[in-house]
């Protein structure tokens, strides 16, 4: 399951790459499609290869990548969240109301992180300990979180310090560096007991439990981290727009699921990889950019997006059926 499963006699290095190759299996098609879209985007918009063009693109991709990871994390444990969008909004309004106040950027970031972890952990506790279906709990949770966002900031407003906006959403690829850092942290997390338990808890909860995996703790931790990633995405969106909006995250719920599924994450838990989910979010974000540059009307964008998502999900399934 993980690169660290066989470390006897210093054989970690020889085993590492085959394991990684194995994880890439089944994602080849996705990577090719992502590459094709990236080439199309580069042709349509040659500015992509300048530093500022690259920065701008990664900035439009970054929040989607974060929520795709947040969703994928839950789907790997066999859960799902329909509250991602509301949580993104909550992160955005907290950032916009605290950062320009006495707490400052550092204090505001801590509050954003705590809110995400806290809400995520609470959702996880309810789903795991009370054994309620995740889809309904998070649907109800989206109302609670969305309501909290409305209480904090009833209408768009607030402010994020200008230097933070420049740092995160200016002409430097800070977002890309942050994404690499998050991906690296994910690799480290997978090496911890809770991270190892993640796949096991999703794939076969009863078997994992009997083998001594802390199933409940792994799932609750997944919800908490997912909340943290979502409010983090909200903070970034607030920095991008320079202010807060209590409903700005709404579209992220749908897009996070679409990105995760495009990336090969299964609904039943234990199937898929985080690199797939990130590639899925990249594809979705490239798709939107390419359609924008091709001059698609919003109508055609919706229609094309719907068709492409269905096609991308259906094709591998049909291929598997033929075999």
């Amino acid at each position, binding site marked *: 399951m993980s690169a660290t499963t066989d470390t006897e006699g210093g054989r970690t290095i020889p085993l590492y790459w085959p394991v990684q190759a194995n994880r890439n299996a089944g994602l080849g098609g996705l990577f090719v499609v992502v590459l094709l879209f990236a080439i199309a985007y580069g042709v349509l918009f040659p500015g992509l290869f300048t530093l500022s063009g690259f920065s701008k693109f990664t900035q439009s991709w970054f929040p989607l990548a974060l929520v795709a990871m947040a969703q994928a994390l839950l789907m790997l444990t066999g859960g799902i969240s329909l509250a991602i969008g509301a949580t993104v909004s909550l992160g955005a309004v907290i950032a916009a109301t605290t950062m320009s106040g006495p707490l400052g950027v550092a204090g505001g970031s801590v509050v954003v992180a705590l809110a995400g972890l806290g809400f995520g952990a609470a959702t996880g506790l309810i789903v795991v300990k009370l*054994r*309620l*279906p995740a889809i*309904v709990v998070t649907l109800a949770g989206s109302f*609670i979180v969305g*309501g909290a966002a*409305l*209480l904090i900031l*009833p209408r768009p407003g607030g402010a994020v310090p200008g230097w933070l906006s420049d740092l995160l959403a200016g002409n430097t690829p800070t977002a890309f560096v942050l994404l690499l850092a998050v991906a690296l942290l994910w690799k480290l997390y997978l090496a911890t007991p809770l991270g190892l338990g993640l796949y096991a808890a999703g794939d076969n909860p009863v078997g994992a439990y009997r083998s001594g995996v802390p199933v409940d703790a792994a799932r609750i931790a997944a919800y908490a981290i997912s909340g943290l990633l979502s409010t983090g995405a909200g903070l970034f969106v607030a920095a991008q727009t320079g202010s807060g909006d209590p409903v700005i995250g709404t579209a992220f719920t749908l897009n996070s699921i679409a990105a995760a599924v495009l990336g090969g994450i299964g609904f039943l838990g234990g199937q898929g990889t985080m690199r797939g989910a990130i590639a899925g979010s990249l594809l979705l974000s490239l798709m939107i950019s390419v359609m924008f540059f091709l001059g698609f009307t919003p109508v055609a964008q919706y229609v094309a997006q719907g068709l492409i998502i269905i096609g991308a999900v259906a094709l591998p399934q049909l291929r598997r059926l033929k075999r």
Partner: protein
Amino acid sequence: MSAAGSVMPRVSAILRSRPFLTVAVVAAVWIVAGVTMRGFGAFGHLRYLVELAAVIGLVAAGQTFVVVAGGIDLSVAAIVTVSAVALPLLSLPGDPTGMSAVLATLALSTAIGLANGLGVAFLRVHPMIMTLAMATFLQGLLILIAGGTAISLDNPLVTWLGNARPAGIPVGILLWLAISAAVLVVMHATAFGARIFALGANPLAAALSGVPVNATTIAVYGISGFTAGLAGVLVLGMNGQGYVGIGDPYLLASIAAVVLGGTSILGGLGTYAGTMPGALLLVTITALITVVNASPGWRSILFGSLILGLLLLSGRESARR
């Protein structure tokens, strides 16, 4: 002796069943609110609540079919909107009753549902993705058809459906009762109903036992499209005009009604007899929250918390998957 012996366990089984529990909760809330709040228990107010519940109940009827069959339909809100917006545009000039427009709208919404079913059955797309993608697709279509404007209604049949009250009972409620009776019969007294439960409980076992899995799947999504379309027609009649976003509240409401009524979101277990009081419960909660006169943020928090609390009563998954 033997008669009493067979009746008593049956009565106690009914008393402990999820649908009865939900009815009891609704009744308790109505009685408490009726005693403590002015005007809540008035006949006109309760009738209005049931009328609102009828729309949720119709959408939730199709949703119940889909959920019992092991799927989920996240496109119902979009279908409600499509039918409410498309109906005024589908009216033929030579039809004074407006019947043809209603039939065309229902055919359209059923076709959308069937398309969902085809995707789930033959393309093997997960229901959540298929119906979400369909909702995205329809959203684009709606902007194309309606843009940002409201389309006003000029259809005698639909106006009658939304406003007439033979013997003091709104037609919408009568329509809901009729559809409910049909749904309960189809679900619990036909081979098709038995196949839906089999499919939801274990698709592989159902297929091996001779259940036509693809046809059944397509049919349940078709039914969901039909009832969502019917709800769209009713809500259009009640509102007098259709606009983009008119159906938005019904996605969460339909799923919540199904789950509050004791149907397992994992499929294979449940009944529409629970969904009906579930719909009433939702409308009642919303009405109570409106009475509290809180800000939109608090209202949203209250609504979410109450649904969560009610889930604890009725929505527990009995065993670890």
